[in-house]
């Protein structure tokens, strides 16, 4: 078994080199921004992990990222591309808000659960039509899901401007959800709430689903070789459809959790592009649920850390986007060397 070890040693070296490359380009960028890189890194780390507020804020930011990434990953298992996380998330958020300001079941927990289920259902519905067009008319789901994002954005803009606009507000936004729908913050001075555990719980469920469940196995086989899957008696179209629906539901749930756990309403520019960041995270994590959590943590820490960087230096917070992009580029470049080649 010597062969195996040398290869994984090589992989380890390459991974280290990858991290080194990313860090040095980051250092360069911060340096160009007019700050000593070491200080820069310190501010980022302190700003994201320095004290427990900052740490909680990093964790809290992970929630939509994890779910949006999972929304891409699950369809990818069966070979489907879901680029529509952004739109599904918006629809999900709207669904949760709609329930939250119009209905009340009296019991808080029931309210929350119903609102979350509705948000997942809205997200699912927004993924359903591209999946249906793909299966019935062979329309490319990359195009339809991507298009769906823009339609969803316009649709939500209309809904919060006209039929569901908060009459007391000067801005285009829905009314607040009733207080019995709010998922409370767990710590004073932090927006961290139980939504984080819902996201982590979903990831664990997905992980177990893929590894241990018959349907999860069918997802993987369908993605690996659909013709073979079909000849084995797996219903390929159904499987692909199901994976898209699950993906949509996850994105919808992300929107629902954001509304119930933080914003309490849907307003203009509700999402700063969670869906697309989720796509990046999923690509970096090779569709693996556990890796998604890790990468989402990195992304989230970068974002909260960069705010701190801006606070203390002249480097703008937007730098986090640039740093993310550097990471994506390098990982894409190294991917073939670390996992891509079949043979050493």
């Amino acid at each position, binding site marked *: 078994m010597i062969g195996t070890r040398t290869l994984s040693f090589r992989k380890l070296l390459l991974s280290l080199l990858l991290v080194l490359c990313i860090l040095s380009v980051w250092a360069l960028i911060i340096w160009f921004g007019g700050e000593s890189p070491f200080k820069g890194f310190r501010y980022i780390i302190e700003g994201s992990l320095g004290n427990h507020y900052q740490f909680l804020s990093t964790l809290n930011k992970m929630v939509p990222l994890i779910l949006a990434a999972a929304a891409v990953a699950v369809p990818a298992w069966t070979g489907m591309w879901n680029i529509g996380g952004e739109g599904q998330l918006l629809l999900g958020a709207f669904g949760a808000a709609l329930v939250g300001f119009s209905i009340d079941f009296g019991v808080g927990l029931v309210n929350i659960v119903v609102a979350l289920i509705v948000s997942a259902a809205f997200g699912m519905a927004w993924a359903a039509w591209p999946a249906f067009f793909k299966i019935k008319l062979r329309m490319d789901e990359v195009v339809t899901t991507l298009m769906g994002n823009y339609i969803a954005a316009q649709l939500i803009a209309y809904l919060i401007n006209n039929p569901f606009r908060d009459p007391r507000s000067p801005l285009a936004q829905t009314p607040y959800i009733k207080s019995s729908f709010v998922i409370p913050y767990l710590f004073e001075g932090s927006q961290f709430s139980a939504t984080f555990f819902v996201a982590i719980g979903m990831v664990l469920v997905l992980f177990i689903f893929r590894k241990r*469940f*018959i349907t999860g196995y069918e997802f993987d086989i369908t993605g*690996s*070789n659909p013709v073979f899957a079909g*000849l*084995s*008696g797996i219903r390929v179209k159904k499987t692909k459809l199901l994976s898209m629906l699950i993906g949509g539901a996850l994105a919808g749930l992300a929107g629902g959790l954001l509304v119930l756990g933080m914003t309490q309403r849907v307003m203009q520019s509700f999402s700063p592009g969670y869906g697309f960041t989720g796509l990046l995270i999923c690509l970096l994590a090779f569709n693996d649920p556990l890796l998604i959590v890790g990468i989402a943590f990195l992304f989230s820490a970068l974002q909260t850390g960069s705010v701190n960087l801006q606070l203390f230096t002249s480097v703008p917070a937007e730098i986090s986007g640039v740093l993310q992009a550097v990471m994506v580029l390098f990982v894409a470049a190294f991917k073939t060397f670390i996992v891509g080649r079949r043979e050493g």
Partner: protein
Amino acid sequence: MSKTYPNGLEALREVSFEVRKGEIHAIVGENGAGKSTLMNILFGLIKPTSGEILFNNNHFSPKHPSEAIDLGIGMVHQHFKLVQSITVAENIVLGMENRFQSKLRRVDREAMNESVASLIDRLRMSISPDDRIDSLPISKRQQVEILKVLYREADFVILDEPTAVLAPNEVEDFLEFVRGIREMGKTVIFISHRLGEVFSLADRITILRRGNVIGTFDKRDVDRESVANMMIGTATDLSEDPPDCLGNESVLSVEGISDVSGTIRDLSFQLREGEILGFAGVGGNGQEELFEALAGSLRLASGDIRLVGSSISSLDTLERRRAGLALITDDRMGKGLAPDRSIVENCMAGHHKFGKFGKWLIKDTDARSFTESIVADYDVRCGKNIKTAVRALSGGNMQKLLVGREIAYEPVVLVAAQPTAGVDVAARKLIHDSFRRLVKTGSGVILISGDLEEIMGLANRIIVLYRGRAVTEMTHPHYDPTEISYYMTGIRGAQDDRYSHS
């Protein structure tokens, strides 16, 4: 030359051999002996662990196939590496298309097609440069692979099991064609499991056994039996007779089926319990469509298929499998296996629909023991690790895995297309024995094969397919290979074909 794969498997152990200029050099050995590995090293596809190559007395250690191609080495792979969705000419020219580019980078398709067509003409093949690869039968795809190599004017041609998917008469043409290559002064390495071909073609033969070279022999100094013995180490009996356990009930009846594209036309037959029914024919005469029609992935224009009395024409593949059908496809990499997945996952596929590993949750131990029994029964050599990716198996071992999985259904009717393609003598016997055991239990087998020897040794009855029709039927023991080949090539039986397009 030595090669140890990253998973620790020693595929070659310090082997040495020599090829002379202008000869046809055959390499024979069982499945997994290391033939493809050795050739891939010569071609620069994989790196050897140690050892060196001298090519025309120069040191040669290709890091990439392009270096081998530059020196005039060409290789036809055991598994096709063609792009499915583009035409024959495009595949052949692929990588050299700048020859046909104008200054504006526009490819001159006419010139491209013409140059390919002239090569096809010179070799007297019947392929059109405009055909899309995915519309061609597998035997034609093989020819495209070879065209691709010759188009690059290779002087040293490696053919890894080129005949495994060809029908008998195609094989004869093909061998003639390889001899023609030798006449042109080129050197050929030829790999095949069929010793008949090897002896009719090769000048010298190198025998590999489990990663070791047993020796290189001049053809005149050895005979078939001795080569077979050196390959395996024990003597085997090469002659076979069909099983004798025919029942009376019909298990499968096909009544006048035609497909939408008109490739198979008005095909009818009955399969009785305990019977092996062979379908002979030149590749592309409806075999693939027959398979698809039985599998449920081809739309029928008319006709009916009945399994033990009840119609299955409107059922999908899953429901047909539930009704007792099992399917061995002739395209193991494309349709029969998921090469990137583990052996376990490949064995489970399909069986998982029968609740063998639990209804919702996968019972790991059940999946493992199921897989281990297939691996053991069918002698799938995988270094004892059933978590390895199927891609890492040798071609023949993949085939054994596929056959083992399908027979494990204990089907009422087994449809087997080219079940022993690329399989060595011992494995072939193992697979044939498993068919015999299956029919003893009252099941029926549809055997679609391009290998006449296999069909005559196994089938109780043979139907010859020509242009999608059953042109004749013969019953054991009244087989006459010459007669069959007349029907296969349309010399007999096709005169009354009103729809003939030729």
